[in-house]
């Protein structure tokens, strides 16, 4: 609580206390803490003098502003048509096997969360995923294995 309060204060000093600062602040919190805790949203509401329900309402509109617990690395697998035609299913299956979680879940060590997302703009190199903000493209199960191993050793 104390910590998140400091971060929110820092961020709102940096981005400003107007309503338009809400998105940059929430985005920065997610970059740092992977998702928005209730405490964080309450703090942001306090700093910007808006209601906590509005902060939640706004955050929940945006898929990248998670209000549910997420791991350190959020893996977003594109499920839109090209990726889905080009082997998205295999990618999901591989990820589920390595991480031992299903889509929508987070590993118990809170390292990885696995979710699906809509087109991420790499259709010509499908199938594609994002790990946090980094895109990985033209994936095969083998490539996925290597990438995740790298992350596990990070």
């Amino acid at each position, binding site marked *: 609580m104390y910590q998140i309060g400091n971060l929110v204060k820092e961020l709102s000093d940096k981005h400003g206390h107007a309503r338009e600062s809400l*998105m940059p602040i929430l985005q920065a919190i997610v970059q740092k803490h992977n998702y928005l805790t209730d405490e964080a949203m309450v703090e942001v509401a306090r700093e910007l003098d808006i209601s906590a329900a509005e902060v939640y309402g706004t955050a929940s509109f945006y898929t990248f502003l998670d209000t549910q617990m997420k791991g350190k690395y959020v893996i977003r697998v594109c499920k839109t048509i*090209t990726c889905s035609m080009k082997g998205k299913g295999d990618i999901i299956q591989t990820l589920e096997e390595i991480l031992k979680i299903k889509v929508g879940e987070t590993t118990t060590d809170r390292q990885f969360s696995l979710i699906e997302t*809509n*087109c991420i703009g790499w*259709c*010509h190199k499908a199938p594609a995923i994002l790990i946090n*903000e*980094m895109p990985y493209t033209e994936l095969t199960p083998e490539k996925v294995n290597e990438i995740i191993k790298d992350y596990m050793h990070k």
Partner: protein
Amino acid sequence: MENKGLTKVDLIFEKIDSKKVMVKAFAMSSAEIIQSMLDSGLKGRGGAGFPTGLKWKYTAAEKNPDKYIVCNADEGEPGTFKDREILDRVSNKVHGGMAIAGKAIGAKKGFVYLRGEYRYLLPKLMIELDSFHKMIHEIGFDFSIEYRMGSGAYICGEESALFESIEGKRGEPRNKPPYPTTSGVFEKPTSINNVETLVTAMMIIHHGAQNFIQYGTKDSRGSKVFSVSGDTPTPGIFELALGMTVQQFVNEFGDGDTKAVQVGGASGFCVPRKKFAETIIGFEGVPTGGSMKLFNSSRSMYNVLHNYLDFFTEESCGQCTPCRVGCQQLLKGVEKVKKGEAKSTYLTELVKLADTMKIAAKCGLGQSVGNAFKSIVGNFKEEIIY
């Protein structure tokens, strides 16, 4: 019907000295810049295809001294990735185009709304932006650009939803009128333009409107960047003159077994093989923000349709009835028909619903769900039913 065939063009990614172009532009009057846009016939490259010159003219005519130029880099339409490539390779031209637009409409401030999926580009873009700011400072033009990030909401590509998002709110489209040119971001007169539109505008200043109109057709001037994906041996980014037929396009990009091309993404139209020859890619035929997806005969068009409907059901902002509930009904409806739990004639009801959505939804998202729905159901009915 004019048809100039498939012509490759090198405009958007052409290497230029952007300072020179800027100096040239700033030496022009606002009216002159706008006139060259009008002369070029440039229409917006974000999908809606509104004449850029007119948009700038309207915004320029507004009395409010606070105006904005917004660059729409939310590129969320399934199958488009050209704006990412443009920002990656020639962001100097994007910033330059914004400054020129700023000069034309009288704005001192610009925003780039970049989709969250492209955040990895940000470090590089910030470096580019720095040198841009230095450059126009040297030239002595008062203009600055700020980046704002999206966070994973397709609807924020719709202009008024984008403004709401910049303002820190849920990306729910606004009622129109008022239009952005009178009341846009922060309720100030705003010209919002697609990434590619702004680059094209800069290149029109550079080469002149006459150079631009040598490409394309009367209704679709010039060239544009196409994002080609799906069943093609050569997926990627291609800059082509507008006005070719789908057949000509397929001849170049198809894998020899193309049965349909989805032009304009999930909100665009599905063109079946039998209509390839007669369908022009451009505003007189099937318009596109650039997304071209090819499907060969191994693909189930039911899966394609289902995927799109799933996309819209999730990505609708959810505020208006026809779109929020309509998407769910279309999705559940085709599922039931496919499973045999609803009669195939139910598709007729769904087509009627899609027609209602087209005229009753509040924004372009709900209004265009019917495009893909009707063109896929219309052309591949058997695949939907059986």
